[in-house]
């Protein structure tokens, strides 16, 4: 018999969205038991690595408007964003900033004591609220610490959730492995919030934490939910070499320049109005174009790169506003931004796509919500503006947390527990993976998979590359890597790694298929063989459903309220 525990609300994932949801739920349902289940230790999630800012309109008295934030977001999305969703984000956000402040967030301040904001790419007003350049870290700390006030939140550190159990319509629980002891559990619950973040480790050159694999997305997919818009992968213009660690957009927001090998601020050719602060897709493409036209640099590792110049900001300003990236560049690259030009290159940074949800974050299964990067409520469309992701996590964390509690209080489940589903899942994991007798090194396979994604589905894509990539990945998938050398139960990271790899294949395939199908260039999805946006044929979202053979691809309409698509110029 499988061990079982029970909560009212299960929150899978402990990043910004997960913790914000936990607080919202704990406040709204003080008598309900809330379990935060995380593959890592709660508070070690990748949200801690967010650097630059959180977008919100705080200075309406100085000329900023919610409407401008909405329009910037929609325009940044290349008009693929659902506009009602974007509006929701912008309306809800200001008070979330103040709420965080009331919980102890150490926002950077202006001399008059008010919360300061900095400039960010694609905005028409400086509205990235910041705390030095460790915004995500401080937000996570604030939320985690605030969670400690509530005694109805329980933390399941290092539990790997493997599947969602439902009766075809309604959520009933999840299965999970407690990594510490290696025990397989069922966690019964009345509602679930998926906040497992993005899947950027599909790419080997990535700003993501090593743990940011698509197991959360895959779990939803296998449960019958759709993945939406997965072909839109954001490449951040400034990942530092050789590690790929993020150099925040705030570096350019504070006045940093991008230079080519002629010493020119080449962004004047591509976005004269915004220069370095154009949206990320445009800056990344500009960098790659410069490189392809021979105006790039060669890094000592043999990779092409571009230079980021922060020297004119001065040591003191860098220490004050960009202390985090100063530490990163000195430690991990041996370059001091006050003295040296930083070697940067576009790097996988964000997935606009995710589990298909409506404006409230509700998924297609009753009782399951998704929030944060794992969700795709289409607030970012085909390209996210910097600083809007932490905003999204916080807003939909709160919304889904409260809605889940409403749902729990109104609904009483009576269906019998589906033991056969648990048994099937146990068989899938233990017979299919743990006891598999392959002879191929799964770590090598993972390396090849992520390298393929990097080569074939980078900033610029084309049909030939994408199809080759898909073929390579399908070939890799067939090899005998499904086995776990480490036979111990306790803290078996080898097992976890192979399960992660298993999920990477399904999601990588969807990313590539989506990219192949979308024969246009829009936002972060940029096809050299179809360089123009095609609103007549592709102004829609992509949906992908699970099928054992090949994902089933569908489309979904875009919600347009006020802003008709126009050509996107900066």
């Amino acid at each position, binding site marked *: 018999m499988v061990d079982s525990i029970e909560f009212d609300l299960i929150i899978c994932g402990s990043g910004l969205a997960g913790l914000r949801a936990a607080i919202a739920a704990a406040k709204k349902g003080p008598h309900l038991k809330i379990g935060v289940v995380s593959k890592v230790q709660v508070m070690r999630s990748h949200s801690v690595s967010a650097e630059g800012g959180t977008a919100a309109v705080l200075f309406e008295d100085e000329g900023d408007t919610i409407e401008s934030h909405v329009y910037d977001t929609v325009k940044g999305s290349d008009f693929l964003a659902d506009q009602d969703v974007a509006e929701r984000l912008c309306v809800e956000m200001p008070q979330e900033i103040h709420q965080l402040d009331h919980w102890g967030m150490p926002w950077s301040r202006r001399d008059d004591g008010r919360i300061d904001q900095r400039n960010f790419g694609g905005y028409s007003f400086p509205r990235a609220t910041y705390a030095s350049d460790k915004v995500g870290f401080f937000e996570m700390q604030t939320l985690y610490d605030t969670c400690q006030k509530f005694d109805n939140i329980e933390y399941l550190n290092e539990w790997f959730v493997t599947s969602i159990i439902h009766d075809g319509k309604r959520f009933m629980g999840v299965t999970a492995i407690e990594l510490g002891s290696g025990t397989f559990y069922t966690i019964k619950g009345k509602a679930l919030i998926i906040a497992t973040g993005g899947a950027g480790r599909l790419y080997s050159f990535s700003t993501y934490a090593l743990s940011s694999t698509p197991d959360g997305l895959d779990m939803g997919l296998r449960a019958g939910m759709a993945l939406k818009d997965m072909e839109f992968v954001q490449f951040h213009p400034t990942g530092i070499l050789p590690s790929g660690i993020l150099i925040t957009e705030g570096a350019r927001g504070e006045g940093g320049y991008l230079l080519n090998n002629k010493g020119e601020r080449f962004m004047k050719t591509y976005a004269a109005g915004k220069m370095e602060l154009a949206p990320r897709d445009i800056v990344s493409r500009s960098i790659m174009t410069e490189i392809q036209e021979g105006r790039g640099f060669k890094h000592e590792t043999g990779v092409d790169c571009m230079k980021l110049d922060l020297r004119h900001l001065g040591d003191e300003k860098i220490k*004050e506003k960009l202390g985090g990236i100063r530490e990163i560049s*000195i430690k991990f690259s041996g370059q001091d931004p006050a003295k040296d030009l930083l070697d940067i290159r576009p790097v996988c940074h964000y997935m606009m796509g995710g589990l298909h949800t409506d404006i409230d974050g509700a998924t297609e299964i009753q009782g399951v919500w998704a929030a944060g990067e794992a969700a795709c409520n289409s607030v970012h469309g085909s390209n996210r503006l910097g600083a809007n992701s932490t905003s999204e996590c916080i807003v939909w964390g709160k919304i889904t947390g409260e809605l889940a509690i409403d749902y729990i209080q109104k609904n009483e489940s009576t269906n019998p527990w589906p033991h056969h589903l648990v048994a099937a899942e146990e068989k899938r994991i233990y017979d299919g993976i743990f006891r598999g007798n392959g002879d191929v090194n799964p770590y090598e396979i993972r390396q090849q998979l992520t390298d393929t994604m990097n080569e074939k589905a980078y900033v610029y894509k084309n049909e030939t590359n994408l199809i080759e990539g898909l073929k390579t990945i399908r070939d890799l998938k067939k090899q005998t890597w499904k086995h776990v050398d480490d036979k111990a139960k306790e803290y078996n990271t080898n097992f976890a790694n192979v399960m992660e790899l298993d999920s990477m294949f399904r999601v990588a395939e969807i990313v590539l298929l989506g990219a192949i199908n979308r024969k246009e260039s829009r936002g972060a999805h940029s096809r050299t063989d179809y360089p123009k946006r095609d609103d007549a044929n592709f102004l829609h979202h992509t949906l992908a459903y699970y099928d054992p053979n090949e994902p089933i691809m569908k489309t979904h309409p875009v919600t347009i309220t006020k802003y008709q698509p126009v050509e996107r110029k900066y």
Partner: protein
Amino acid sequence: MPNDEHREGIGGMINPRRYGIERVAYLLMRLSGLGLLAYFIGHIYETSNILRGQVGWDDFMELISGTEGHIVMSIVIAMCVFHTVNGVRVMLGHGGVGVGKPARPDYPYDPASQNYRHKIGIYSAIVLAAVAMMYGLAVMFGE
């Protein structure tokens, strides 16, 4: 003390090699404190000999006025001076004196509390203890 909790145990607590002079001072403070307590108890006991009158006192004086007695005494002096000077330093530190001011840390991090003021305090405690020990030896053997 290897155990379930994987505590480093006494060995780790007293190992002075891996960290700065502050950790050495911590160790010396403990050892001198224990030494002084032992001496103090002994001292109370030895002085009670006076109740045995002149004979008793002189018997006892003979015991401590030899070379060994002088050496023990000089170590006690050293411990006493170190414990006092370092104690004053630690006490000031505990009150928040000379431990630096909170400030944004800049990489490479250099903890303000591990500053020269307290290092000077520690070194001067050691030096003063040594000087006092020499002086004590000079006085005791000088006669």
